[in-house]
């Protein structure tokens, strides 16, 4: 796939705990079509999941970002570095050209405004000489257009997207930042079965799984953080409390066991799922 029609995921923040964000509204539409809903977090990050009317950026789970880049649908843009790198490429002649373009636009606006003023005076039957021109007023009405996307940064983003080594590096860095690496395998196994997944903290899990688009379906399952298939015991106190909560909100409480052989080609059968709910008696 060519880098140009891939989805750009910006990794924002410092260190390993980077947050994957998508800023382009067309990219967000594409993501929805492939079963990644994400969370719109614009303007109110503290209550992101509680409000359906927020704007871009779209915040993705780390597992989603890893999966999208691994399947070749998306590429990473390293947030802070791409801005500084892009800024460093600017030469003084380019700065000068930008300044000239701005001056040019101001000159055009002045001509236009004077003409408008003259026409207005003529309409009101006043001679132009009577309305004395006030330069301060004219200057303060000049419009500076700020583009919504930076061409410098988009060039830099494209360059990063076409650099496989850089992409690999960012992917592994993001993966290493995961507190529970098994969760990514659980995510992939559920994704292969066409579930929509969203963060599960609302119902006390790692993921919430929907059988289709969350706007059309209620979720079926609260998926718990991945367990080691052979070593981790099933915590019965969690079974009881999670099972009660799950039954109350009509969701199965799902535990997933991941077989430990990291870095091997992981297939669906490497993850075993068990669904738990209250039996209705006792």
């Amino acid at each position, binding site marked *: 796939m060519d880098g140009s029609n891939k989805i750009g995921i910006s990794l924002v923040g410092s260190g390993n705990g980077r947050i994957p964000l998508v800023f382009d509204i067309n990219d967000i539409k594409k993501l929805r079509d492939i079963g990644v809903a994400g969370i719109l977090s614009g303007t109110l990050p503290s209550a992101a999941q509680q409000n359906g009317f927020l704007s871009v950026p779209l915040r993705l789970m780390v597992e989603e970002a890893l999966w999208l880049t691994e399947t070749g649908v998306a590429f990473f843009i390293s947030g802070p570095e791409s801005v500084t790198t892009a800024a460093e490429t600017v030469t003084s002649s380019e700065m000068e050209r930008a300044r000239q373009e701005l001056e040019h636009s101001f000159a055009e606006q002045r001509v236009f405004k004077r003409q408008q003023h003259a026409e207005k005076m003529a309409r009101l039957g006043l001679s132009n000489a009577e309305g004395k021109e006030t330069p301060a007023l004219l200057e303060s009405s000049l419009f500076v257009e700020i583009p919504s996307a930076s061409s410098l940064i988009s060039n830099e983003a494209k360059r990063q997207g076409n650099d496989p080594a850089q992409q690999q590096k960012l992917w592994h860095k993001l993966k290493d930042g995961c507190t529970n690496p098994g969760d990514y395998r659980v995510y992939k196994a559920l994704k292969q079965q066409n579930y929509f997944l969203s963060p599960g903290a609302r119902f006390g899990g790692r993921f919430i799984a929907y059988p289709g688009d969350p706007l059309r379906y209620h979720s079926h*399952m609260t998926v718990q953080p991945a367990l080691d298939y*052979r070593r981790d015991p099933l915590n*019965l106190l969690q079974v*009881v409390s999670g099972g009660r909560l799950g039954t109350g909100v009509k969701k*199965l409480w*799902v535990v997933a066991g991941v077989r430990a052989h990291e870095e091997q080609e992981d297939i669906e059968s490497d993850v*075993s*799922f068990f669904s*738990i709910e209250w039996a209705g*008696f006792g």
Partner: protein
Amino acid sequence: MDNSELVELVKTNLSHQQLWDSVRSFKLSNSDTWMVNGLPPHKLSNDDEELETEWILPVELQQYNSGNMTLEMADQFFAELKCRRIILGIVNDDGTVVYYFMYKGLHKPKKN
């Protein structure tokens, strides 16, 4: 997973409190784990087509110890019993028992 000490309590609870019929216990092969089976007095879920024998695994709930049942063991139980679901009979330290369905794989929530 040695649960032999819980078997009698769960059997008593099922037959005398939950009013199940034909409650029996079995030891699984190649394991020190005991299972209880029996017939409930009515269908346990609206999704069930008919009354059928249910398999109960007695396990002990401890506050500061998450027990020793791994998901690998759960898979072995399913493999040996060849059943759709097992019921976890979770024994509390006050002698009460709570029951939870455990299905293999991903399952839909039951209809009300």
